[in-house]
């Protein structure tokens, strides 16, 4: 399972005693540490740390691309009622295990899809679906579909994408039941695509929420450990070692099993978040402690103390701004672990339970080998998981390279 990694471990050169020796001479490419020219550097010289980070981040194409992918994912999760063609719970028993229906385009019918119809094999009694290319289901953007309550606030029936019922009414080749299941349907005839979008709301938010709790715990405990030092540091470090010595998955399972089965869904959701964060903070605490320990010895921190600065000023003006960018990177890189953790717990049936829709819950259907063999599209919720995890990793990589604009420039 996931662990916090310290993404800076191999990146940071060991501090050197005499700066002249840290000069380009021992690196084979002497231009990596080139000092900017003060005359020409007027523009770049007035940029703050965050502006420099942004400038460098922009050059990391993959990370910028991943950032936009994540924006799309999170936007669709926030406005999932609007972006999903159907409500996650609405069933259509005529389309149980319907295969994915791909949108098509031609000039005669515009954007459309072929209708499918369930048939039963007379010999084996097995259901299967056949395409009927004569029957055309027109599709469109900004169409009216099933009514829903947007954020539980007001009634609405506008959908971003779906069956264009108005065109359908005009059409001659229309089938009697017009459905569009982009990723197919599950065993109850529910639209997998809509459920993936709804599932994102849970799965993606749980990652952010768990990371928020983790970071609060990690920064406070790690900060105390690093700044106070001594016996307190000793105690915290030994506790962290004990906590991280527990095998993670069984502990998650045990903690998740403690939650009573009759808890309301919201409580279960928060409970899972807490379970994930309670085990995740240790790595972050160590990173924070290490960072504070090393920054405390930086000469500018010593200089501030010699200028007469108090603890508060040293900590908040000199130490904490020194590692916020690193913390952001560490957190970005650990969100995927949280998402995967939720998915794993829910998949095993110990996390969220139906009727809550999350990617892990959806994958419970894929537990049976036979189901996967017959209806492989029930595995499709894996795709957003992979996309989200990869995007977070790439974004974290890009941030890591950009986060230390004063390092190996």
């Amino acid at each position, binding site marked *: 399972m996931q662990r916090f990694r310290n993404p800076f471990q191999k990146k940071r050169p060991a*501090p050197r*005693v*005499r*700066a*002249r*020796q*840290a*000069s*380009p*001479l*021992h690196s*084979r*490419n*002497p*231009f990596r540490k*080139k*000092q*900017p*020219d*003060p*005359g*020409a*550097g*007027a523009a*770049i*010289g*007035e*940029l*703050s*740390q965050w502006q*420099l980070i942004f400038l460098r981040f922009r050059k990391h194409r993959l990370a910028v691309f991943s950032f936009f992918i994540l924006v799309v994912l999170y936007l669709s999760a926030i406005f999932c009622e609007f972006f999903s063609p159907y409500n996650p719970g609405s069933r259509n028993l005529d389309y149980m295990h319907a295969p994915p229906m791909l949108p098509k385009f031609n000039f005669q019918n515009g954007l459309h899809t072929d209708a499918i119809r369930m048939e039963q094999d007379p010999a084996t009694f097995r259901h299967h679906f056949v395409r009927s290319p004569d029957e055309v289901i027109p599709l469109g953007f900004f169409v009216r579909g099933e009514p829903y309550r947007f954020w539980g606030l007001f009634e609405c029936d506008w959908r971003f994408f779906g069956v264009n019922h108005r065109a359908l009414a005009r059409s001659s080749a229309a089938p009697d039941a017009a459905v569009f299941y982009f990723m197919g349907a599950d065993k109850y005839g529910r639209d997998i695509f809509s459920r993936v979008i709804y599932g994102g709301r849970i799965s993606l938010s749980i990652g952010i929420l768990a990371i928020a709790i983790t970071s609060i715990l990690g920064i406070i405990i790690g900060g105390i450990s690093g700044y106070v030092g001594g016996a307190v540091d*000793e105690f915290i470090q030994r506790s962290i070692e004990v906590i991280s010595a527990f095998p993670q998955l069984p502990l998650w399972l045990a903690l998740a099993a403690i939650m009573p089965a009759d808890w309301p869904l919201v409580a279960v959701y928060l409970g899972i978040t807490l379970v994930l964060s309670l085990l995740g903070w240790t790595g972050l605490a160590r990173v924070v402690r290490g960072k504070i320990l090393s920054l405390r010895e*930086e*000469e*500018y921190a*010593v*200089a*501030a*103390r*010699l*200028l*007469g*600065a*108090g603890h508060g*000023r040293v900590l908040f*003006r*000199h130490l904490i*701004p*020194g590692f916020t960018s690193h913390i952001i990177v560490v957190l970005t890189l650990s969100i995927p672990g949280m998402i995967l953790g939720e998915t794993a717990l829910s998949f095993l049936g110990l996390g969220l339970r139906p009727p809550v829709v999350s990617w892990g819950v959806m994958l419970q259907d894929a537990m049976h080998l036979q189901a996967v063999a017959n209806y492989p599209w029930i595995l499709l919720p894996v795709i957003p998981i992979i996309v989200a995890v990869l995007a977070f990793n790439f974004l974290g990589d890009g941030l890591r390279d950009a986060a230390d*604009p*004063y390092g190996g*420039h």
Partner: protein
Amino acid sequence: MGDINTMPESILNVSDLKTHFHTEEGLIPAVDGVTFSVSKGKTLAIVGESGCGKSVTAYSLLRLIQAPGKIVGGQIKLKIDDELTVDIAELREKSDLLYHVRGGVISMIFQEPMTALSPVHTVGNQVCEAILTHNEVSPEEAEKQAVDMLRRVGIPGPEKRLKQYPFEFSGGMRQRVMIAMALVCKPKLLIADEPTTALDVTVQAQILKLIKDLQAEMETSVLLITHDLGVVAQTADDVAVMYLGRIVEQGPVREVLKNPRHPYTMGLLDSLPSINARAERLRAITGSVPSLTQIPAGCPFHPRCPYAVGGVCDVGHRPDLTELGPGRVVACVRAEEITREQPVRAKPAIQSENPLPSEVKETENGDKAPVQPLLSVRNLCKHFPIRSKGLLKRQVATVRAVQDLSFDLYPGETLGIVGESGSGKTTAARTILRAIDPTAGQILFHRDGHTVDLATQSAKELKGLRTRMQMIFQDPFSSLNPRMTVGDIIGEPLRIHGLAEGDELKSRVETVLARVGLKPEHRVRYPHAFSGGQRQRIGIARALIMNPDLIIADEAVSALDVSVQAQVINLLEDLQEEFNLTYIFVAHDLSVIRHICDRIVVMYGGKVVEIAETETLFARPRHPYTQSLLAAIPHPDPDTPLAYNISGEVADPSALPPGCSFHPRCPHAKAGLCDIAGKPPPLQNLAPNHQAACVRLEESYRI
């Protein structure tokens, strides 16, 4: 120098070598048309400040340049034996011949002995590997050769040391191992890239002597890359001075150093503190080495050159090398017209016989005698416990970083604290300012008729005193918070103490910026926009803004290039005069100390071994350690040879030798006298203002 008619054959001929780097900032011509040759058994030194292309030249010779760098032109003709001469620039990457050349014909010593050896293999393994790669011998034979080589580089008990790992070796010993590895295959050419820069001065003297001895013995040619003109003078036969990717002056070492013809060479020599008489301003080169992406038109040195003439030096292409004599070239269009302004030669450090002019001494003493000291340090100790790794954290040893340090510091004077690494000088400086809490002793600070003991002040009481004393740090890169603007950094002390804000703060910051030689508009920039020397000026401005009485400069110039170092030293001296500052100057570089300090404290193993006024100390050093230290300074005059009389390395402060800490290295030590446990020699008064701690002072003096 030999007869010109019997010029030794050259084994390496580099002609018009060009190594360029294609980076985002544009093309960087790091080496741009360099021509030189290395003769058999001779040493060619390449000198220049950082960013001038010395190391890139060295790496190019071994084809170790990595992307985005590339050798884009020129030849590197290497004579492998009488029949075979290869052009290294033409060799295919990964060809057998190239691998044979690397290590077999040319080998290299790197700057950092700490990182150049693999920590996971034994030293024997690494030396044997070098032998086995290039020679067809049995492992047993290789081991024999390795033992032999380690013995020749002066490693005692080589059979046993062979089985040890690099961490069991000290810095100097590791550099010896590196040399053994480099020479074990009997290379024709040894490239030494700043081989002694990371070492203490006494160890440097040992290593330089070792390289010279082995070179004579094995007839190896040496290409020495260094920034230190002293090292050049002591080791090289010929010297090439590089500036911005090209050689600007080249010739036999005596001629170049004694009669430099290029203004850059003159400037480098004039920047050296040891050449200038004390109390005189250093004639520093102005400005700093520009970026290779913005090479000035015409002669690239003209913006910094005192002899530059408009319309001649700043137009056209870079001046070509013109021949002045056999093997003597210079790239300056005005080389014929200019001469160095009366070269000021100070007396060489240790040979000086004539005593100090007595009137000077008297007036200084007369000035000081009635004055109350600003700071009196009494019996200051700082011990660091070493704790065991286990759960219990028992104290297993003590690092006695500073022991029994006592001295007085008078207003307006500059006191130098000097010693090798690990001698406790930095700890002493930081303890005096209470960056570290002392273990014992008093730090009495006298001000306005009051005396406070800094050692016992609480954090709150200290805060008020912080306005009176400040520190300048060694590393101009880590001592400024990269996330604050220069204005915020310099103004921080005023904010902390609530002394000024708003427009007043701004104007005070601008005043002090102008005073240290920066522009007021630099206030809004961040430290990353400044060069090392400019950052050090920012650090000085921060220390200065509260008008302190005392400034402690901890190796404040040791990280800077020699020309910039001279500028900063001049600035510090000007400021002292203007604001009546009192300095404690901590440094390992004796020539800097000699130039700037009135009195000097020499430390060894955490203890003071000698205190004296600067002239006295350099003219008549009494403690054997001081004598060795002075003798080990490589003087930038080839006719002042390195007097080498000390072996071993700095004592480990966690396991100091009993008695006098220096006795294991001391040429005058006597068993049963110097090594009695619990009886360290006390400081004895030798003359007013001169004390030394040695029990054999009478015998050891000037042997």
